């Protein structure tokens, strides 16, 4: 049913665009209402039929995926929740995907936040992702929520040498030394991978400057689309990979789904949001091309 809807709507949109391309070759303009109809279709069809596109991870996203994939089982992975509710729709899919992937691979996951709001978002992630999808994982053994500490990059400056100078207990007040997951963890240097998800200050940039670089620890990140361009100069030397905006999230979700069949039914908000975006983009670009063709044809005719 879905496939039928998809094929029909693609045929309609494709044939329509082709028709207007042919008209453009005769120098004819497209009426604006036609464009509106195409945009309407391009956005509503993917919503109605839950059309998603095969996303292919770009190298910068694939780098993050490969890193988690290639770490030996039982490696230590830290995920920092550096965002608040307003940024959540865009970056929460990323932190959830990181969390899923790390747990599925059997890594030990340490959650924390440089943003005060990150602490409760991390707690939500434990409820909605870990407890639901990985009921066998044990708190304190396979994962832990360290919570938020005030001090922005100052926190990193301290925990790069000694985590316990900042964190004596986890978020629930349990002594860190009583948690098996903390055995042998003295500082961030004992982590195999640091991941920061966010899009403001403090965020990925601070993780690079105050933890990754001084400690020679690999840093990966997920960032809102607005701030992603500012992080590209760090890739690939200081930042091993980056998920930028909904697109990055979708690519990662797709990569995860391809290799882990058990995630076939988990929600993929990133991929879902990309459907209408992609189609609308294509339609707009098609019309820009059509517009230019009819413009040049008409100009040549006029002499």
């Amino acid at each position: 049913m879905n496939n039928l809807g998809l094929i029909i709507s693609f045929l309609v949109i494709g044939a329509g665009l082709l028709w207007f391309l042919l008209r453009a070759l005769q120098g004819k303009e497209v009426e604006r209402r036609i464009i509106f109809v195409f945009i309407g279709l391009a956005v509503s069809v993917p919503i109605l039929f839950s059309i998603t596109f095969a996303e292919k991870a770009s190298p910068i996203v694939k780098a993050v995926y490969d890193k988690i994939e290639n770490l030996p089982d039982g490696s230590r992975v830290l995920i920092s929740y550096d965002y608040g509710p307003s940024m959540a729709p865009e970056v929460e899919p990323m932190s959830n995907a990181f969390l899923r992937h790390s747990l599925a691979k059997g890594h030990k996951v340490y959650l924390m936040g440089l943003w005060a709001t990150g602490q409760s978002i991390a707690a939500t992630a434990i409820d909605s992702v870990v407890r639901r999808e990985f009921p066998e994982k044990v708190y304190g053994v396979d994962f832990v929520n360290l919570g938020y500490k005030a001090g922005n990059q100052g926190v990193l400056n301290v925990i790069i040498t000694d985590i316990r100078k900042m964190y004596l207990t986890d978020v629930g007040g349990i002594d860190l030394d009583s948690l098996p997951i903390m055995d042998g963890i003295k500082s961030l240097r004992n982590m195999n991978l640091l991941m920061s998800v966010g899009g403001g200050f403090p965020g990925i940039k601070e993780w690079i400057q105050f933890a990754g670089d001084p400690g020679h620890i690999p840093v990966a990140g997920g960032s809102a689309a607005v701030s992603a361009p500012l992080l590209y100069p760090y890739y690939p030397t200081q930042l091993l990979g980056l998920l930028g905006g909904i697109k990055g999230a979708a690519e990662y979700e797709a990569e995860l789904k391809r290799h882990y069949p058990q995630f076939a039914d988990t929600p993929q908000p990133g991929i879902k949001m990309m459907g209408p975006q992609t189609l609308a983009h294509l339609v707009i670009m098609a019309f820009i091309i059509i517009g230019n063709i009819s413009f040049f044809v008409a100009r040549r005719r006029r002499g």
Partner: protein
Amino acid sequence: MNGSRWTMIVLIAVVTLFLVSWAIKSFPSSGDTISWPSIRHAFFVTLAAFVTLAIFSFLYKDNPYYKFAEHLFVGVSAAYWMCVGFWSTFVGNLIPRISPGLSKFFGVPYKEFTFYYFVPLILGILLLMRLSSKAGWLSRWALAFIVGTTAGLNLIRYLRSDFISQVSNTFVPLLVQWKGTGAFFSDFSLASGGQFTLMLTNWVIFIGTFCGLIYFFFSKEHKGVFGAASRVGIWVLMITFGASFGYTVMGRVSLLVGRLTFLFDDWLGLMN
């Protein structure tokens, strides 16, 4: 005559659809009995869906349904802001400082009598003098107060936040520390952290800003070298405008996704 008959038919169809939608949505899904809150809720969801469609109909052409939604929106929103302003600023801010009696009447806690709050009260009343043709000029005092104060405040605010920091950020090193040819030419791709790129980037920012400013010169003819720089300036501006436009497309599509999801899901219930 034919046209108006069609109008009537469409109107009747729209009203019928509205009523049908209202009736269907009124039935609770879980088999409970129909209740006043569910009828009320169904009415408002249907109303929201209809005004949404009415606004979308504008894309085809101006029509009575758009006109209806537009005029309703204007009336309701004007009153909304007036009520919010009245309760939060007038009652919330002014009344508790000038009159214990009025505070009691409006049910707000009386703070303390502050003489200075009579100034905006008087200026506000002077502003209302506009309605009289004879004393209308008095309203200028209030306008002068507002324009003067905010002109001063704005001047400073803009200088502080944007202007001076933008000037000082233009100072960038145009030469990089030489670490050998290998390091310099290590990475040619743009947006990388390589030395070559860094230098190129700094040069482009500097020259771009410089030429952009030249474009904004008003009192000199744009001729010769000056004109060339100003042309480069407008090129940089155009490239930027194109990039911003392209970048915004993404965000705007998600707004439409939100509205269509409301129609398909909350109203029609098409998505499981």
